[in-house]
């Protein structure tokens, strides 16, 4: 199982801040996970579409593209940050 977190506008739009997912064998990296979530359709497809400015972190470090995922990982999706 992996833990997937959503923050800010994404958390509100998707209606959840956190979920546990059992990774199918076909999903090996961050891009694959995003595609898996997009395949849910509806709001998921809209919010996580490749054209949207979505940022991601794997185990609390910013991550882009084909970052490999393993059981027990914590993955987060969120909009570009606006602190400070």
């Amino acid at each position, binding site marked *: 199982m992996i833990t997937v977190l959503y923050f800010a506008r994404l958390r509100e739009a998707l209606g959840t801040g956190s979920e546990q997912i059992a990774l199918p064998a076909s999903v090996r990296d961050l891009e694959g996970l995003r595609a898996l979530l997009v395949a849910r359709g509806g709001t998921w497809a809209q919010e996580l579409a490749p054209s949207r400015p979505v940022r991601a972190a794997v185990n*609390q470090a910013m991550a882009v593209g084909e970052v490999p995922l393993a059981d027990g990982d914590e993955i*987060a999706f969120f909009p570009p*940050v*606006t602190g*400070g």
Partner: protein
Amino acid sequence: MAVRIQTADFDVSAEIAALRRGNPKVGAVASFVGVVRDVNDGGIVAGMTLEHYPGMTEKAIGEIITQARSRWNVLEVLVVHRVGQLRPMDQIVLVIVAGEHRGDAFAACEFIMDYLKTRAPFWKKEQTGGGARWVEARATDDIAAERWRLKG
């Protein structure tokens, strides 16, 4: 080197005094305070909520401080960032850099703020007359952070 995420306000002079206490090597202290404005993108802002990613926030800021320390000669660094509900004129963020000389303290302080703006996982949601809206990231913040890379 310290990072604090808190809902409570902070006292700038008490934080500076604590950071340089007992260290006679400190010859310069540079600080930055970010404050909530009552207007943004042409709309009146009544207040804002700051959300963050607990755990990653501290880690990301810690890494930014480590980078600053590797580039400039600084003695002590403190970053305090507030989360939760804030109102116009409230203090949001504090960066203090204590060093031997002002040049490195100024540069490290500005670098930390520019990197925090684009790399630390915080998100602002503003309450305006027309309802609540998530603040959009600014391209100018990316440009401000990018220029430190060009400086090598």
